[in-house]
């Protein structure tokens, strides 16, 4: 299935990763591998559940000190095409209970395609609009401006990392 993207709600990232598809797939589906890259250092990541089957649980925790862990993601897989595609959502938690995650509910679709140089990697994330509405209702312009500068810095840092 493919669906159109809504530019106000959705995001898409395309990247050619110079590693075999099987390697990238493993990095996503092996709990020890996933814990290595899922959260930015110095935050520690613990993969609590990773049942890579449709309906399977996807639960991760995070920690600043590596001792006390708090919730990070409580989600479930919707689609698993082995080696090719993963779809998961946090709108249903790992027990299939409808959830209202912060800041906004999303469905993420990760596609692992063939590419002459490795893996044609694509992320599409579709969001609910509840977060958007809440954001615009609750934040006055002055508060919104503080958010802008914080995010300008965040984006600049993210760009710096890729260099």
């Amino acid at each position, binding site marked *: 299935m*493919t669906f*159109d*993207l809504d*530019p*106000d*709600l959705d*995001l*898409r*990232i395309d*990247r050619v*990763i*110079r*590693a075999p598809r099987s*390697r*990238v797939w493993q*990095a*996503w589906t092996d709990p020890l*591998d996933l814990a*290595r*890259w*899922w959260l*930015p*250092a110095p935050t520690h990541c613990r993969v609590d559940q990773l049942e890579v089957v449709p309906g399977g649980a996807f639960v991760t925790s995070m920690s600043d000190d590596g001792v006390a862990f708090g919730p990070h993601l409580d989600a479930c897989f919707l689609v698993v095409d082995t080696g090719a595609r993963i779809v998961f959502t946090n709108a249903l938690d790992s027990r299939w209970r409808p959830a209202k995650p912060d*800041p*906004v509910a*999303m469905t*993420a679709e990760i596609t692992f395609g063939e590419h002459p140089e490795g893996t044609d*990697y694509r*992320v599409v*994330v579709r*969001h609910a609009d509840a*977060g*958007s509405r809440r*954001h*615009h209702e609750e934040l006055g*312009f*002055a508060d*919104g*401006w503080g*958010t*802008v500068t914080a*995010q*300008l810095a*965040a*984006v600049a840092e*993210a760009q710096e*990392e*890729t260099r």
Partner: protein
Amino acid sequence: MSCAILSFMANHSLTLDDVFAALADPTRRAVVGVLGRGPASVGELAQSASMTLPSFMKHVHTLERCGLIHTAKSGRVRTCTLNRKRLGVVDGWLAEQRAVWEGRTDRLEQFVTNPQEPS
């Protein structure tokens, strides 16, 4: 994925770059801040920026080109209005979520292409 959507996505990211570039300048950020309180004439804006009109107009054009503001001329007065929707491109949860996923993609790429190094 249709060609129309692909070309839209390409244009969308160009827009994002333009908006960030426009906001990189303190004078232009101040203009956006003033217009956040309501529309203002170019003359008023130039005065509050302590700039001559010709050099200030360059900033107005930059902001207008990337869609952050609209301008309309009535008689001798050109009035600027903030386009809040365009500002929303960088302000808010979607930009934050994009940064999160870009970061994840960077770390995954680093991990699978260079797994021996601590990440």
